[in-house]
């Protein structure tokens, strides 16, 4: 990303915050309802140690839940790609599991697995693993048939075709799935923290809200958003390094230029 292309989001951001600040001041909006950006910034600064202390366990669980969903999702995708029985048997179940709102299931998970990490990881996994399954399976099966035929013509066996042809060809879709999954993992862990945690950024948000400390609540939300953006950005960076042979799924630059 060039310095110039970074300039635009920054400019828009500054304009947005300036507008927000002036509206809040002009209309005399109470901080408990909508604090001005300057107040949120001050809270972010003065209470940074507390926010970071709660951000860390959330971050750890998001990354862990995400990794589990990537590994699990890809494994399931491979199984349903190569086994017709598995596909016919499990695929409908997987789809149904996605339709059930995880937030509704969360209290049950707590009863079965307790109020600790396992419940939250399970929730994050359940939310984040479906895009990995779909995208990986689509990527594996959607590979150009000509490439597969070429590999067969040169005596590639099933494993070689999977590892050297299908898997690399599927990578763009796999990374697309990962970008969706990381976002969902963030949501999953934070939502789980609302109903089943003793620490974490979601816990801090609930605590701040419980005392009507809206500035702290919004500061926590800002910190959470920054973390989510950083995680997404990390994946996009890795994607660009791994998928060096074609443009990635990031929006194109230039527009109508």
């Amino acid at each position, binding site marked *: 990303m060039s310095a110039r292309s970074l300039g635009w989001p920054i400019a828009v951001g500054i304009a947005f915050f300036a507008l927000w600040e002036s509206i809040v001041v002009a209309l005399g909006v*109470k901080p*408990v*309802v909508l604090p001005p950006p300057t107040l949120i910034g001050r*809270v972010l600064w*003065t*209470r940074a140690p*507390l926010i970071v202390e709660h951000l860390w366990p959330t971050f750890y669980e998001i990354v862990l839940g995400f990794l589990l969903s990537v590994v699990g999702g890809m494994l399931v995708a491979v199984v349903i790609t190569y086994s017709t029985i598995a596909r016919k048997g499990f695929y409908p179940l997987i789809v149904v599991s996605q339709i059930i709102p995880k937030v509704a299931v969360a*209290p049950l998970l*707590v*009863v079965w697995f*307790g*109020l600790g990490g396992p419940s939250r990881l399970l929730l994050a996994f359940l939310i984040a693993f479906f895009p990995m399954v779909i995208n990986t399976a689509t990527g594996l099966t959607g590979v150009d048939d000509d490439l597969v035929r070429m590999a067969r013509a040169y005596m590639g066996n099933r494993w070689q075709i999977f590892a050297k042809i299908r898997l690399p060809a599927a990578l763009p879709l796999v990374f697309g799935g990962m970008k969706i999954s990381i976002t969902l993992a963030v949501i999953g862990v934070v939502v789980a923290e609302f*109903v*089943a945690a*003793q620490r974490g950024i979601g*816990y*801090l948000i*609930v*605590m*701040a*809200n*419980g*005392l*009507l*400390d809206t500035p*702290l609540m919004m500061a926590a939300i800002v910190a959470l958003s920054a973390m989510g953006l950083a995680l997404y950005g990390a994946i996009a960076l890795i994607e660009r390094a791994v998928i060096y042979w074609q443009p990635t799924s990031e929006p194109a630059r230039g527009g109508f230029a």
Partner: protein
Amino acid sequence: MTISRRTFLSGSAAAAIAAGGARAAGAQGATKVKFTLPWIPHGGYSHVFVAKKLGYWEKRGLDVSIDRGFGSGEVCKTLGLGQYEFGSLDLGVMINCVGKGLDLVATGGLSPRSPVGIFSLAKKNIRAPKDLEGKKVAFATGSGDFQLWPAFVKATGIDDAKVQKVFMGPEALIKSLIEEQVDAEGNFYGSIAPSVWAQGLDLNLMLYEDYGVRMFSLVFATRSKIVKEQPDLCGRFMDGVMEGLAYTYLHPNESVDIHLAMVKEFQGSSTNRDVVKHGQGVMTAMGLVPDVEKNGLGFMDPEVVKRTRETVIAYMGAKDVPAADQLYTNAFAGRIKLTPAQWSGVREGVKRYVPVKA
């Protein structure tokens, strides 16, 4: 020893327990105990933080961890399933859960007066139940105050159809009252009042119990298994928490300081401090009843427990609820007492928090 649950809880073993409970820590080292609050650790729960900070459990050989809770209903489950040794929760909800098969017993009272009621901003001038007709009233889905609303309607004779009800998640309730999106709402005195007062606003309130819906509110509870098999542990835990409660009654400002020191998330502004202070004051005020002054901290009036049980059966659809004397025990209560002079001072200190029927 095999004693039936009934005889055991009637306190006939009280003497043995009292002797055991006062003993200092054994040679083994601290016993780990997990305790859950009913909700987030707001000002009403200063006593547990005091007990922990000032070593009232430590000196009795207990290492107590304090977790936030997710509502009395959830506490029933986690406590009943053994994920915690002790918990604090609403007695009515606990009785309902015992009816559903969870193994719970109340070991001491915290708030004999029920904080459940209908609250509104003073400026709305809603002073009597009849004033609610034609108004918009908010409730949290699944809340205790909404479950008891039919009892309140019956007791006050208002026309339910004329009250416009809206539902929202519990987090949104207080804000929507302050922002006047609703005229009144069902809530818990200890939750709503401190936050509203800290914003510089005044409240009108109608507590259900002032209109005949009498319920015991917050209690400490555990599984009956633990009461039966580890009465010594119960005694030590309850003594520690009651000593903390006494300190909170007698030293409210220091208690607020301790609370803020231990719950870092609530530091940061004088408004936050006020919310904690008011919350603590409200809980103290709700504990000031004659039979506690007479019998000591934690005492639960058998009549009130019986009335609570009846209300739960009538309005919460509970079935198969055991007899009242199987649901609680005063065996651990009343071992910490304040002098009449001390009670006087406490009452004076929380005068502004005692809810007055409008």
